[in-house]
């Protein structure tokens, strides 16, 4: 039988000829912990080797300098970065929240993501003892803002996800 092109090219033999070159440039993933519980997780994850992912563990606000609230991110080395600039330079923004923790700062981050057309992924990482109503409370706050909302048990999922995203 004369094989069709599809039959020929889907063999293992032909799969070997998939051309070898990078098909993407590194993307800037910004990982922001929304509370102290998740800051600890982010701290641990950040010590692994990443392709330029940036990790931030707290947000602070500064309303004194005019009408606009200015938000600052603190990275793990204690440096301060301007939230707006970080979001503008991101390809993907990941926020991490512990269950039942105060996650309200997400709205400011989300606003900037919308403004700059960035995808916001939100991870709720409940501790073992977390109650359902605490998880719910976090989801309620995050739901209106995230394109993808994930409840993931355990720190290892943060790692797995960032690896999968080539962060």
């Amino acid at each position, binding site marked *: 039988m004369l094989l069709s092109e599809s039959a020929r090219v889907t063999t293992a033999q032909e799969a070997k000829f998939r051309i070898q070159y990078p098909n993407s440039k590194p993307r800037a993933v910004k990982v922001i912990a929304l509370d102290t519980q998740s800051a600890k997780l982010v701290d641990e994850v950040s010590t692994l080797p990443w392709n330029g992912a940036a990790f931030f563990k707290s947000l602070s606000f500064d309303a004194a300098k005019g009408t606009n609230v200015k938000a600052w991110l603190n990275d793990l080395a204690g440096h301060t970065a301007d939230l707006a600039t970080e979001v503008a330079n991101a390809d*993907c923004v990941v926020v991490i929240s512990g269950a039942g923790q105060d996650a309200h700062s997400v709205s400011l981050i989300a606003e900037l993501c919308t403004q700059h057309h960035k995808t916001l992924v939100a991870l709720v990482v409940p501790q073992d003892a977390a109650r359902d109503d605490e998880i719910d409370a976090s989801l309620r706050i995050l739901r209106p803002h995230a394109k993808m909302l994930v409840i*993931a048990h355990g720190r290892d999922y943060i790692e797995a996800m960032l690896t999968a995203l080539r962060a």
Partner: protein
Amino acid sequence: MLKKEQNELVTQTGPGTPMGDLFRCYWLPILLSEELPENDCPPVRVKVMSERLVAFRDSEGKLGLIDEFCAHRGVSLWFGRNEECGLRCPYHGWKFDTTGQCVEVPSEPVESGYAKKIKLKSYPLIEKGGVLWTYMGPPERQPVEPEWEFCTVPLNQSFTSKRLQECNWLQAMEGGIDSSHVSFLHRGDLNNDPLFKGAAGNKYNLADSKPVFEVVDAPGGLYIGARRNAEEGSYYWRITPWVMPCFTMVPPRGDHPIHGHFWVPIDDETCTAWSFDYHPVRALSDNERNAMKDGKGIHVKYVPGTYRPLANKDNDYLMDRAAQKAGKTFSGVEGIGMQDASLQESMGPICDRTKENLVGTDNGIIMARHRLMRAAKALRDKGELPPGLTVDHMKVRSAAVILPPDQHYKDAAKEALIAKEGVRQASV
């Protein structure tokens, strides 16, 4: 993206591989009952997870699944004579029962007991819901029998088909939990396919092609919720369960039967895509059953006499560029099942995941892989049994519901996600 070693870990299911050992914890569907229709019918060759086996139904109706090759000199027992409670090799007449025990070696005196010392490897084979299931793991770990709703409802409420898919099981299964492809690949079929059209929910699907997602760790696997806007600030949710390692369900539409899949490795480069349709509370209508037999919905038309789809890679899946251009089908391939299969096969026999570029909305797939790798390692390193083995993990359903914005589907649709006898599916 997966690293090369990770990709090998999740895709290889042969004997002795970590993922193979994980799969060998479960009952898996391997044949349709119709393939062994009566006592002493012809035996059937079947390859599961890179093991070549032969299945038969003996003179008393007992089911057997044994090593395909005769213990004497290796002839395929597919040529065997299925007679008088055993399968007899046509070469020199050795005979085996459903447990693989050799019961006759004609050249040796019966009194010598020679036959008793010969036994082929065998696995249990049971029949449930029109499907034959096997368990290929250690006997002491054999779990409870399959309790999936599609195989426990009365037979007149269900229809199950299978098709050969010419690629690794994982890329096929990943299509089952990849809710974001529906708005593209299958968009032409929502209002046309007899098993999909007419549902109120379809309009939300078509009006809002940018759903947002919520992925939740469940005890047996995952729930993937896709949320679209409905009326007055409420949300239309489509919720897909995935149960370890290879069971997925599609959220229902209107009163159409609910459907789903099992993705069972044949070897590392082919799998069987099982497609089931059932209605929890009523018999399927003749129209529905005929449409399913005719390859509509998630089912396919076959090359006559086989379980190979009629549209397959040897005929370029009957690619219709005019239909593609006109938007009748998005990819040019007809039928939901073959739209998925054609693209998944095009990835190559084993998709090279070192080259992919996943996005945030791929979290369902990322999490499923993560759970699979974690479970395979826990089994290998600590002997920990994986999720998906208990009745409560099997009693799941997909659902389509409309919820107020502040409610989480995991709680608000909690009951809808559990399969309960006599209770209608939650559907829009």
